Structures are given as structure tokens and as C-alpha cells.
């Protein structure tokens, strides 16, 4: 079986890429194939990259406060394209926004202070689920 493939992306205009890069590095070290898109991505670009690379999980990092706006567009676009890839979000997300993101279909929200171990475990579980679902289908 091939390695799990994860897309790590920065949605929107903010340039705070420290967290995204640290997470991307940690996933890589944990054996994932990691596609890092870099900063200033639009939801369209993220979806396009996810399709092109056939990823198992999409990870999005936002530290600008514009997470509700961008993630809702991303989720809508994924639905429109019929793409069933789990999405996780990380960044400076205030607690009251967590249920809002989950309602949109985001599988997990990593708040500041989340450990790399926790992130790796969740991403692995979501990737496994996705592959299993594909096999059954």
C-alpha cells in the first residue's frame, strides 16, 4: 500500500507559515507523503491541488481570523466537485468557532497548543478511514 498523502495549505492572505511548515515536516517525518502548497492559496487552488495529487487528507492553516469565510468556501467547493476528502483546520481559532467549523464538515480543528503527535494521529486515522471507505466502495 502506498503512503498516505496529505495536502498542507495556507488559505487566504496571511503569511504566518511557521505552524504549517512545522506540521508538514512532522507529517513527513512520520512517513506521510506531504504536498505543501505554500501561502496565499484560494479555496479553488486547494481543491485543484487535492484532485491533482489525489490526497487522503487536506490540512488547512489560517492565522488571519478569516477562517470561517475561507473554510466555508472550501467546503462548499469540495461538495460541488464531489470530493470526499477529510479536511482538518489549524490556527488561531477561538473556541466558539470550533463547532461552526465542524458544522461545515471540518473533521478536526487543531487549536494553538495542539501537539504534533495528536495531529499525526488524527491525520493517520482520517486517512485510514478514507482508504477503507474507498476499498468498500
Amino acid at each position, binding site marked *: 500500500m502506498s503512503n498516505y498523502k496529505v495536502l498542507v495549505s495556507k488559505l487566504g492572505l496571511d503569511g504566518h507559515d511557521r505552524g504549517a511548515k*512545522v506540521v508538514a515536516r512532522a507529517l513527513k517525518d512520520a512517513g506521510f507523503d506531504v504536498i505543501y502548497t505554500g501561502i496565499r492559496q484560494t479555496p479553488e487552488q486547494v481543491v485543484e491541488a487535492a484532485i491533482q495529487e489525489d490526497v487522503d487528507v487536506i490540512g488547512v492553516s489560517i492565522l488571519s481570523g478569516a477562517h470561517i469565510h475561507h473554510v466555508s468556501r472550501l467546503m462548499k467547493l469540495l461538495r460541488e466537485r464531489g470530493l470526499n476528502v477529510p479536511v482538518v483546520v489549524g490556527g488561531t481559532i477561538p473556541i466558539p468557532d470550533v463547532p461552526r467549523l465542524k458544522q461545515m464538515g471540518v473533521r478536526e480543528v487543531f*487549536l494553538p497548543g495542539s501537539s504534533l503527535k495528536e495531529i499525526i494521529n488524527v491525520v493517520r486515522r482520517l486517512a485510514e478511514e478514507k482508504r477503507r471507505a474507498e476499498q468498500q466502495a
Partner: protein
Amino acid sequence: MVKLFNNESIEKIREALKKWEKETLPLSLQRFPERMERFTTLSNIEVKRIYTPADLADHDYFEKLGLPGEYPFTRGIHATMYRGRLWTMRMFSGYGGPEETNKRLKFLIKHGETGLSLAFDYPTLVGIDSDDPMASGEVGICGVAVDTLKDMEIIFDGINLGEVTTNMTINPPAPVLLSMYVAVAEKQGVPYDRVGGTTQNDPLKEFIAQKSYVFPPEPAVKIAMDVVEWSVKNLPKWNPISISGYHIREAGSDAVQELAFTLADGIAYVRHLVERGMDVDEFAPRLSFFFDSHINFFEEIAKFRAARRMWAKIMKEWFGAKKPRSWWLRFHTQTAGVSLTAQQPWNNIVRTTIEALAAVLGGTQSLHTNALDEPFRVPSELAAKIALRTQQIIAYETGVADTVDPLAGSYYVEWLTDEIEERAWRYIERIERMGGMIEAVKKGYPQREITETSYRFQREVEEGKRFIVGVNIFVDEVEDEIRNVPLLEIDQEEIEARQKERLRKIRESRNKAKVERALAELRRAAERGENIMPYVLTAVKAYATLGEIMGTLKEVYGEWVEPPLI
């Protein structure tokens, strides 16, 4: 050569140390084994158990320290430092539209801040208008939205620009925002020689860390240096550049890297200006710097002191500057946003206090203290006020500002100052060998160094080698309540709609022919390689938008796309 201690004293101390290690220390170690095998600063510099004059055996007082206001300025750039004038309390602020920001500036002035500092939203930082599709959802969140001169007029409504100084954290669009500021000053009847403040205007660290770049490295530096040249000739009180380590640090570097990369950026700018034919003593006194103040207290103080000493040497010995003012490293400091935690956020007040104290003991010229809610959003009024009060307590209650450079002569602080300097020189030499910072940036060298350091730090936190209270030690089991601090409410959609509406009206009512002419002339000037500042100023006064001016420049200079490195 004036040594701090004579050889005989040093010998006696060394002997005493040996005896101490044999007789006194073992007992202590037996009773209280040390907490860690290896103690290190955040820059991974190993800290010894004790420092004595023996660690400063070869220390030459005048070479290393001197007196404040004199070369090499380790002890401060002014003879009296804060006894004469306290540092400027300059709170980085701005959110929503210009109306909200005008109100916030007046609130902070009322509560005693002594300088202004504008935070712009992301669309403004990357030079696009509020009605650009890429701006959707981002207008007014991380700072104030500015599209045209009209917005700047509202921001400074009722604030006399002849009586305050303003920092603007703006980089690629610096020529535009400076022109807007100057145009507002003109409208208020303030003469150019009374317009004071700072444009950050430091393009190299955008590629390294802050990532609000627009143009490729060479034209980015060219445009920034246009601002410097124009300001030096027209705005004698303006600091046209703030060479910034802050963002480098926040992006995950350590203190040594922050210092080295910042000075290497400065060297690249000085070289560019000299190649332009400017006299180093004409512009060097207007260069300013900006550093982070992180939580490892003594390391930060040592960093600030080393920075002054190194820059003085660079300007005097490398570039042959003659005026003492050209040797000064004047700097603004911001406490470390990255050191703050979303967990138990009230503790952030304490972190900020310690970091602010380090900045003051390090001799900063101005200071921003972060608000406790920084991990979530731009600060609420209350949080911003507490942050300002933190500085006021340090200034007026603690007595730390009453004597110059009070930590000079601390065996540890002096040793650490030397150590950080030594390590920073090694980085600078490496960058010089690559052909200077512009080349190093294009190769991704500082970017990779920072990624390595931040990844190492994160692993150390997770392995329990570094502690962060509330994160990996003294963690609250249930923390939802305490994590919920009252946050500033921003009606983002309303603000975005308001900005777009104002922009629409301006586009309709302005003299279109005048705007088009100004943009065409700007384009020609850029193509000819002229200094673009006078043309940007004309366009701004005709109410050309930020996006139109930046768009014109992008067509001439191109845009930077970063290769995604991890």
C-alpha cells in the same frame, strides 16, 4: 587596553573556583541535584552554572562597552538614556475601517501612549483593494483597511500630524502609504520638516519571514530604497526603513539568527544606497531597526546590546561612516507574540511584562507591548489598555529606567553578549560568502535555517525539554472557561461592505483623466528606473487606489512567487 580585572585578581578567582568546585559544589549537588543535565538559552547556547570575572578575563572595557552615547554604544545610544526621555510607548493598532481605527488611536492617546503605530489588514499589506476578489473575507480583520487617501484622512481625523509620530507597518506598498501620510499632513498644513514617523519598508525580511512580499527581490529592494532616498531628501524627521528582526523571530528563528539576519539585511540596504551614489553619512542616521523581545530574559538583553555594538562596527569599519549618528542602532521593540499562549491567556500579561522589561534593560527607543488576547485576534480596548499600562508601570514605578544600562558588568550578561555577537558574526560571514542577503534569500538559506530551528523548538517542547506554562506544564484539565477571554467583536462583513462602497464612490467622483495620467507617468518613471516616490505621491493625491498603483508597478516589476520549501 583597559581590562576589567587584572591578571592577579583573575588568577585568585580561578583558584577559588577550583577550590569551590572541589569543596562546596559537591555537597550542594548531592543535596540538590540539578534540574537539568544541560541548561540552554532559546538559541541553544549552553549556560554555565556560574559566571565570574574569569569569564571576562580578556574583556577590554572601551572596546566592548565604552560609555553610553559613545562608540561602540553597547551601553546605549544616548548619554542619559531614560533619565532624559523615556522610550516611546507605541502601541501597534488598527482594525476594521478607518473610523474604528481613528477611535482606537484616540483611545490610546488619551491613556498616555506617546507614539502611534498603524496595523494594516492583509489586503493592504499585499497591496490590493478591498473590492479585489482575493480580499474577500480579510478586509479589516488583522488591521485597518486602506484603499485611498480618503481612508488615511479619516484615520487621522482630529490628530495633528505635526504633534505625533506614526509608525506604519507596511512593506511593498510603503511608497503608497507614506505618500498618503504626507498628503494628509499637507492637508493639515504641517510642513515636511515636522512630519515624523517610520515606514517599515524592509523587503528582505518579507521573503525570509513575514511573507507579505509582492515584487521579486531586486525590484523590491530598489523600490524600498527609493523611499529611503526620497525621505532623506524631503522628510528629515522620517525613518524611512525599520530593518526588522521581529518577524524573523516570530517565524521561528532563535535570537542569534534574528540578530544576524537583520544586520545582514541592513548591510544589503547600505550597499544598495552606496551604489546608488549616496553618501553613507547622508542616509545612515535615518536607518532604524526593529527587534523581538522573547521570554529568555538575559538572552534578549544581551542580544540588544550585541546588536548596537555590531552595527556600530559595521557602519564605522565596513562602510567608513564618519558621523557618530551613522553608527547608532536605534530600535523599536515588540514583545514576542509567539511566546503567548491561547491556553490560560491571562498569563500572557506576565509574559509580556517580563519581555518588556528585557527591552527596557536592553535600551530600546520605543516599545509595543502585546495584549493578552493576541493569540486570538486584534486586542480589545481593555486588553490594549492593560498592555499600555504594563509599560507605564515599568517606566514610572520600578526604577529600572533611572540609571543607564544597569546590567552592564554582570558577568553572565557580558559573557552572553559576547557569545551572541560571536555566533551572529559567523552567520553574517556565511551570508557574505553567498554574495550577500539578496542572494541568500533567493537560495532560501535563511528560510531553511528558520524552519529547522522552529521544528527543533517544537520537538523540544513536546519532548518536555522546554516548558511552556499551561501548554506542557501546569496544564488545566478543563480550560474552556479560562481560555475564553472577552474578544473584540468585528463585524467583518459590514466593514468590507462599507469599504467597498466608499471605494465605489471615490472611483466615480474623482477626476478620472488625472488618475490615468498619474498612473501612466508612474509607469514610465518605473520603466526608466527613476525614483518612483514623486509619481506615487501625485497618483495618491489624485485618489488613485492602492491596488491601482501597486498594479501598475507589478506590470513593470513582476511578482514574486515563493517556491514552497519545507
